[in-house]
C-alpha cells in the first residue's frame, strides 16, 4: 500500500482504519463494512453483473452502435452503475456507502424505467440490454439485486458498522 508523502495524520488514520476494520470484521463474519460477511456475496454477484453488462455494452457499442444508439447507451450506463456499485460496496467506508446507495437507487430506477419502456415501446429497444423486460434475460436478477443491495446497506448502517466504524477506530492496517 503506497502512502503519499506529507499526508495529514487524520486522513491517513481514516484510510488505514477503514482497511483495518474491513479485515477485522472479516473474521467476525457479520456486520461492519458493506463488503464483508454476507456483503461479500453481494459484491460477488455485483461483480459478475458488472462484467456481464460491461462486456455486453462493449460488444454492442464496438460492433453495431448505429443499430440502436439509445439501447446501447443505456447498456453502457447500466455497466457503469454496476461497476460503481461493485467498487463502492467492496470498499466500504462513509463515501463509498453513499456512492453505493446512489448506485443501487439509480440501478433500481433504471431497471424499472427501462424494463417498462422496453415492453411498451419495443421499437426503441431492438436489442436486449441487461435491464430489458426487467432483466428477464438474466433471470430477473437485475431487478432483485438493487433491492437486496439497498436492504443490505440499510442493515450495515443500522448495525453501526459500515458507515462510521472505520472513522472512529485507530489505524490497525494500512
Amino acid at each position, binding site marked *: 500500500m503506497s502512502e503519499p508523502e506529507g499526508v495529514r495524520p487524520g486522513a491517513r488514520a481514516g484510510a488505514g482504519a477503514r482497511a483495518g476494520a474491513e479485515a477485522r470484521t*472479516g473474521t467476525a463474519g457479520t456486520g461492519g463494512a458493506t463488503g464483508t*460477511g*454476507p456483503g461479500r*456475496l453481494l459484491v*460477488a454477484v455485483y461483480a*459478475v453483473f458488472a*462484467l456481464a453488462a460491461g462486456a455486453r455494452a462493449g*460488444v454492442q457499442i464496438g*460492433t453495431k452502435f448505429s443499430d440502436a444508439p439509445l439501447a446501447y447507451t443505456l447498456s453502457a450506463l447500466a455497466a457503469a452503475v454496476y461497476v460503481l456499485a461493485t467498487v463502492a460496496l467492496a470498499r466500504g467506508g462513509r463515501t463509498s456507502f453513499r456512492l453505493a446507495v446512489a448506485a443501487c437507487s439509480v440501478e433500481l430506477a433504471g431497471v424499472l424505467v427501462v424494463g417498462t419502456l422496453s415492453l411498451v415501446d419495443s421499437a426503441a429497444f431492438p436489442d436486449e440490454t441487461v435491464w430489458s423486460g426487467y432483466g428477464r434475460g438474466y433471470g430477473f436478477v437485475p431487478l432483485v439485486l438493487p433491492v437486496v443491495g439497498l436492504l443490505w446497506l440499510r442493515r450495515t448502517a443500522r448495525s453501526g458498522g459500515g458507515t462510521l466504524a472505520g472513522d472512529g477506530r485507530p489505524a490497525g492496517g494500512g
Partner: protein
Amino acid sequence: MTTVLATAIIVVALLAAAHALVTALRDRPMGVDHLVVLGVLEVLLVAQAVVGFVKLADDQGPRSPATFVGYLLAVLLIPAAGAGWGLLERSRYGPGVLVVACLAVAVMIVRMNQIWSGTGV
C-alpha cells in the same frame, strides 16, 4: 466449442459449487481443497479458450464472434477473481463467493453454447 469440453466444464463447475455450498453450510472458511478444484476449473477454461480460438480461426462458429470471444475471455477471470475475493473472507461467506462464481461459470458456458450454435442469441 466442443460438447465434451463444455459438458466437462459445466459438471466441474456445478460440483465445485456444491462442494463450496456444503462448506458454507458447515460454517467453514475456504481451504486448499477449494483452490485445487478452482484450479482444475481454470485449466479446463483455458483449454476451452485455446480450442475456441483455434476453431474460430478455422472459420467455425458464429458469424459475428465478438460476443463469443468476450465470453471466452471473461469466463477465465471468474475462478481467479472468486478465489481471491473468497480468500479475503475467513468465514462461511468465503466459500459462498465460490458458489456464486462457479454457478456464473456454468451459466456462461451454457450461454456460450447457445451463441456458438446460433440459438437464443
